């Protein structure tokens, strides 16, 4: 299921990687032969339900965990045999508010983590300055991190990840818990890094992140790669073309007449104070569909029809349903 792009040597090669954990309850197989190749400059989204193996895979790539089987190479270096070489070439950015020295300033945090990767002297100072400016923390860079908002802390994580200009950047849930404005700031910064040629592997529960940023999506399920496709091709796999939300005045019809051509499924009917709404998942949506709906519901006083084309969210939910209840 591996698919890389381009002719140049891949930045990341994951071949048949497995990882098991032993506990008192028995052995848990977190990864079961994962194959994945990421070419230079690619931004690949890694999707999966909780427990799919995303975090385990990121930990193996970043040398924090050893695989129990298979190999992982970063820029040609094996993570198990040459971890130092791998560490020089990648940066792991974890989401959340932890992982920083809160009593210290952003500059202090940046300088420290950059020193660990080998930056020194004037280069260290210059790159730290560039990194704080890049993520928009310049005016607050000397304040203790404990005074920062969630979004500012996340931006600092990103600055720490990029200050050494890694060849591979691993981003784990970079927008988790952020308000929409801060999440957009993070996406803008990640997008700029992608434009500068950084290879990025991104995991996120916010499918908006993946949809806006990734060119390719890898779906992990139960420790295996379920899909590895360019984003447009993954979107084509949607069983429905759109979600149509009907809104009507008054009381909802007891049995909605929804015998519509191309109808995939009917969502829950919701009754509000003086209106009702109903979601329809349709395989195809044309102007005729709208006319047909109006004919079907002549007395129900439809006040609004909203059509949302299926996105990654829809595809992901369908995939999740499929794997939860296989046919």
């Amino acid at each position, binding site marked *: 299921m591996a698919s890389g792009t381009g002719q140049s040597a891949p930045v990341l090669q994951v071949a048949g990687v497995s990882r098991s954990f032993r*506990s008192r309850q028995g052995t848990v197989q977190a990864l079961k032969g994962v194959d994945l190749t990421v070419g230079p400059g690619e931004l690949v989204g890694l999707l999966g339900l909780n427990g799919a193996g995303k975090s385990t895979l990121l930990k193996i790539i970043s040398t924090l965990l050893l695989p129990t089987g298979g190999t992982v190479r970063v820029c040609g270096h094996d993570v198990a045999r040459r971890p130092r070489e791998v*560490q020089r070439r990648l940066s792991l950015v974890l989401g959340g508010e932890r992982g*920083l020295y809160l009593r210290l300033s952003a500059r202090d945090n940046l*300088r*420290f983590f950059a020193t660990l990767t*080998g*930056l*020194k002297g004037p280069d260290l100072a210059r790159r730290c300055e560039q990194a704080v400016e890049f993520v928009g923390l310049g005016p607050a860079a000397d304040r203790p991190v404990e005074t920062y908002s969630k979004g500012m802390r996340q931006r600092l994580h990103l600055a720490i990840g990029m200050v050494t200009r890694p*060849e591979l950047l691993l981003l784990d849930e970079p927008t988790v818990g952020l308000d929409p404005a801060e999440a957009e700031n993070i996406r803008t910064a990640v997008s700029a890094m992608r434009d500068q040629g950084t290879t990025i592997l991104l995991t996120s529960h916010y499918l908006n992140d993946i949809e806006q940023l990734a060119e390719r999506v890898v779906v992990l399920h139960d420790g295996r790669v379920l899909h590895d496709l360019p984003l447009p091709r993954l979107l084509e796999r949607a069983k429905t073309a759109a979600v149509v939300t009907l809104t009507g005045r008054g009381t909802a019809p007891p049995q909605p007449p929804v015998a519509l051509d191309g109808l995939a499924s009917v969502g829950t009917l919701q009754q509000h104070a003086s209106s009702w709404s109903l979601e329809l998942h349709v395989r195809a949506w044309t102007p005729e569909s709208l006319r047909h709906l109006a004919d079907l519901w002549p007395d129900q006083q439809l006040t609004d029809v909203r059509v949302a084309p299926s996105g990654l969210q829809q595809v992901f939910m369908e995939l999740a349903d499929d794997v939860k209840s296989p046919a």
Partner: protein
Amino acid sequence: MNHLAPAPWWRVAAAAFRLQFRGISWLSVLVGAAIQPATYVTITLAANHRGGLDPDAVVLGSAVLSAWTATLWHAGMVLRRELWAGTLPAICSRPGGLGPILTGKSVASATLSVAVITVSVSLSAALSGHPLTVARPVEFTAALALGFAATLPLGLLVACLFLLTRAALRVAEALVYPVFIVGGLLIPLAALPGWARPVSGGLSLHWLSVLLADAAAGRPSGLLPWCALPVTGLLYALAARIAFGRVLHRARKEGSLEIF
């Protein structure tokens, strides 16, 4: 893309040292390294108004006890503090290495505490009318430095044990006073039962207190304490290295230590 040359261990340790100093909690230093030792000295000297104890031994004993405990606990908690802060994934996925960072941070916090304890105990003793006199300052300083260097690896060993065994923290707390007793700081070694005395030979605390007491009193210590102190330090360092390897093995290979 440029590949940065890996930082040498001493630069990483120095960066960790600087970071620790900048993030120091002055309130905890004030309480743990200034007020607490000063209270020990002042109260013990006041209680000793009939002169049953040698005032110099009281002052020196309080200082050694405080400094040894501070060194041990600062080094011992360094790994746990990183775990609490959630910084271990970022540290361990970078080429600097965890060992130099823990060493740099332990040295920073322990050095500061020992320096503050020294000042605090000296001032308290002087204000109580029993200033500590050191007959052989060179030997005294050398013993202090050697004792510090020998105790730090014990702290790092304890730091690893704290992660490897959940109960280790409670066990260590329970062992504090038995160790003081076996080290000869609370009860003279001569008063201990015969079977307990050899145990003190394995404690850097015992040899450190012998050397400091001798240097303060102007007595020659002989070769044994001067050799035994670094040997205990080397043994602790060896054990710490093994325990550190075990921590990394359990974290990376077994995945049974959830520190990342």
